[in-house]
């Protein structure tokens, strides 16, 4: 198990190196180059030359890449052209927000998707089964931003059950040691702040979790349908064990393997898919910041964020792979 972790972490090195080359090349491939992109309407040849010299863009490409890589190794991802603050800092402020949103979306997707899929499979052809198909179809087909707008309109604007935007009420005064607002509230014992932050996560969490919910429900249904007809389940029944044990220890545990793979892949999508949801709910996570960066051609932010998201994605998948081994003993030896 430890070997797997070390192996995977070592594999991160070539992955990030390759990605850095791609990102470096991409910025150079912008029409007119990065300087044009930065200057926009203020472009004059003199200004461009000045910036090029300042940024070392007049030097050979490999020298530039070497410098870029050197900075990366020191944890320097450059400075945002828009806010003037270091990219790493911008990331660290916003990443917790997106992470919180992703966790809520996942809890929603898994908490409803797995039971729904399970019941649908155990009672194939029943009302629940058909309902799960409808839910899945709706979840997959309705665009996230549309669902986000509907939720916001219905539950925030019309019914007023949930706040419509932001991470916390503007009137709430709270300290933020970790920038995970819910966690912060709990750590500092500011319960009302924690609750307020949590309530702000509900609607965006549901909007973001709708697609994974649909996929998890479908996968669970398929996996449980197969496992419940497996020989070992019949044998387990022949042993006369309790229904709860049959359900939990035999059927669900075996059915979870393919579902887990799906969930792992979804986490990556959630981290990057938060752009739309965060924009609709004016939620200041990496998604909305990235969207801003695209509009403003803030290329250091784009470069840096893509790299950091890749690291997070790789780590999440490592966690998923390790958890396979926990569920399935046959994989431990291979790992």
């Amino acid at each position, binding site marked *: 198990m430890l*070997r797997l972790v070390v*192996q995977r972490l070592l594999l991160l090195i070539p992955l990030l190196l390759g990605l850095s080359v791609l990102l470096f090349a991409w910025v150079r491939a912008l029409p007119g180059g990065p300087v044009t992109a930065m200057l926009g309407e203020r472009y004059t040849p003199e200004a461009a030359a000045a910036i090029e010299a300042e940024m070392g863009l007049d030097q050979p490409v490999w020298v530039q890449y070497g410098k870029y890589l050197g900075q990366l190794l020191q944890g320097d991802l450059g400075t945002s052209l828009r806010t003037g603050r270091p990219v790493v800092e911008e990331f660290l402020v916003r990443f917790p927000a997106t992470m919180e949103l992703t966790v809520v979306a996942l809890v929603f997707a898994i908490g409803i998707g797995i039971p729904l899929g399970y019941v649908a499979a155990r009672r194939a052809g029943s009302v629940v089964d058909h309902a799960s198909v409808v839910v899945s179809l709706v979840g997959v087909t309705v665009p996230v931003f549309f669902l986000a707008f509907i939720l916001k309109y219905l539950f925030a604007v019309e019914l007023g059950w949930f706040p419509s935007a932001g991470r916390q009420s503007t009137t709430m005064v709270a300290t933020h040691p970790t920038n995970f607002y819910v966690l912060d509230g709990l750590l500092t014992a500011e319960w009302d702040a924690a609750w307020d932050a949590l309530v702000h996560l509900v609607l965006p969490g549901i909007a973001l979790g709708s697609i994974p919910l649909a996929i998890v429900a479908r996968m669970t249904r398929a996996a449980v349908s197969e496992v419940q*007809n*497996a*020989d*070992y*389940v*019949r*044998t*387990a*029944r*022949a*042993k*006369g*064990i*309790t*229904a709860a*044990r049959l359900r939990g*220890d*035999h059927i669900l*545990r*075996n059915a979870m393997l393919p579902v887990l793979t799906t969930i792992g892949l979804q986490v990556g999508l959630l981290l990057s898919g938060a752009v739309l949801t965060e924009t609709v709910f004016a939620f200041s996570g990496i998604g909305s910041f990235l969207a801003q960066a695209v509009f403003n051609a803030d290329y250091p932010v784009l470069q840096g964020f893509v790299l950091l998201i890749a690291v997070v994605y790789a780590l999440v998948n490592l966690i998923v792979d390790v958890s396979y081994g926990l*569920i*399935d*003993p*046959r994989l431990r*030896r291979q790992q």
Partner: protein
Amino acid sequence: MTQHSTDQPDRPEAAVTETPAPEKEIAVAATAVPADDDVVLRVEDLAVDFRTESGAARAVTGANVEVRRGQTVAIVGESGSGKTTLAMAVLGLLASNGAVAQGHIWFKGEDLGAAGAQRMAQLRGTELGLVPQDPMTNLDPVMRIGRQIDEGLIDNGVRTLRTARARTVELLQEVGLPDAARRASQYPHEFSGGMRQRALIAMGLSARPALLVADEPTSALDVTVQRGILDQLAGLTRDLGTAVLLITHDLGLAAERADVVVVMYRGEIVEQGPARRVLTEPQHEYTKRLMAAAPSLASRRIEIARERGLEEVLEEALLAPSAETGSSDDGTASGNPDEPTTAALVQVRDVTKVFRIRGNGLLSRGRDFTAVEGVSLDVPRGGTVAVVGESGSGKSTLARMILDIEKPTSGTIEFDGAPAGGHDHRSRIAYRRRVQPVFQDPYSSLDPLYSVYRAIEEPLRAHGYGDPAERRARVEELAEQVALGKGVLRRFPSELSGGQRQRVAIARALALSPELVVCDEAVSALDVVVQAQILRLLAQLQEDLGLTYLFITHDLAVVRQIADRVIVMQAGRLVEEGTVDEVFDTPQTDYTRALLDAIPGRDLDLAV
């Protein structure tokens, strides 16, 4: 019991149509049932239906079976005969679309047909035990063996959470699992097939049930392992006084292990009675067919050359099974008159195959595993050589080397005087045309999305054979050779029976007119009756097309029916070699003797 056994065989097959009549009789009897304390299970006029898209399908019709304390009753039949359905009905474990349509299942005076799901769950694991068929699929892969036995003990109130493990270890010891305490904390994938089956037996008997249903408990295992496990099972059930309902397709095994044999065919019990009587005086046509086909009982090679049909061949085999192998008009396997004088088609010389097992760590070195060691053999042109051995004996690796799928580590394989396989892509392709395989599992070796026509045509297409019209003609010719109707060509593997699929696999192998056909357990997955048909087909094709066969099998009984020469392998080495008669009649090594002894029913003297 006697009452059943005497009136049952007389019942003609046509009796299906008049089921209502016996139903009435039984209804009367049912009211006066639990008279005999010794009767553990009495199945009366049982019918089981399955709901299908095309309406209800009756899987079991009017079945009457009785099992007494300490008695073993075997239900024999081919797959689809309803034998497993009957057993599952007793356990209340029918698939969700199945239900008891009529009749009673009396278990210790209680009608299980009328018992609710809850009551059945209560009885299973305490009074009713199951030893399932396939040890590879019947253990939960993600749970430790010990825990899988513990949970039954705990949930049935036999032991508490704390004391369960000690009992589990005892149970595992009881079924002959060495080092049981350590083994209990291992997972199924760390067990061999035989060990898994032992664990399943321990599981089935863990709560000391009054009735144990053993559903083909050893059919997935090697013969020698099979024997040991059946002995263990028989010993335990005898000591515990457990009644056993043994489900099997092997008449020989049933005869050897059971007190009473019940023969099922197409959902009906066609014959039942004391094991010995059913075998010596089979009444029903189907029982006779089953006996004729049973590989363990057939002792003669299928000789197609004679102008005799199979029936005659088998008839004779039945009449004189233990008699001298040579009859007046044929030269049988040993004295084959057309024994090739020319060089062998395949010459294997001192071949060794070493596999490198990947090490565990990033840097740790792998270790070597020798699958085949210094094996030499000849396959004469037009002859049939069988390689027998248990799993792990290296026989399949040998076959793969001859097929040019694996390269030998050392030694040479010559085919028709030239090195086997090819040195480049082109010569390898050419070799593949001349040597074709037929694999074991007709269920998984055919692409489910290919029609039969496409499956047979594929090799022709791949090797650029003729134009579409010529290919069609060839495919139809092949289908005819393997006795597949034209209508079958449009169908898909899922719509075919096991026997039909294997015919498709054979037609596909023959498409390119190969000289050597390597049959890797080609009939092992088939029911005995079908198996006999396929073996006969192979013999016929050999006669017509001059094919050479290399038969890889663990089933010695099959060998006797098809092979001229036998090679016995054990742990990668060749331990014995000779003609079929030499090996069967005067085995030279203990290992071969053990293999022969393990054939179920071999010792039964069935000469009528």
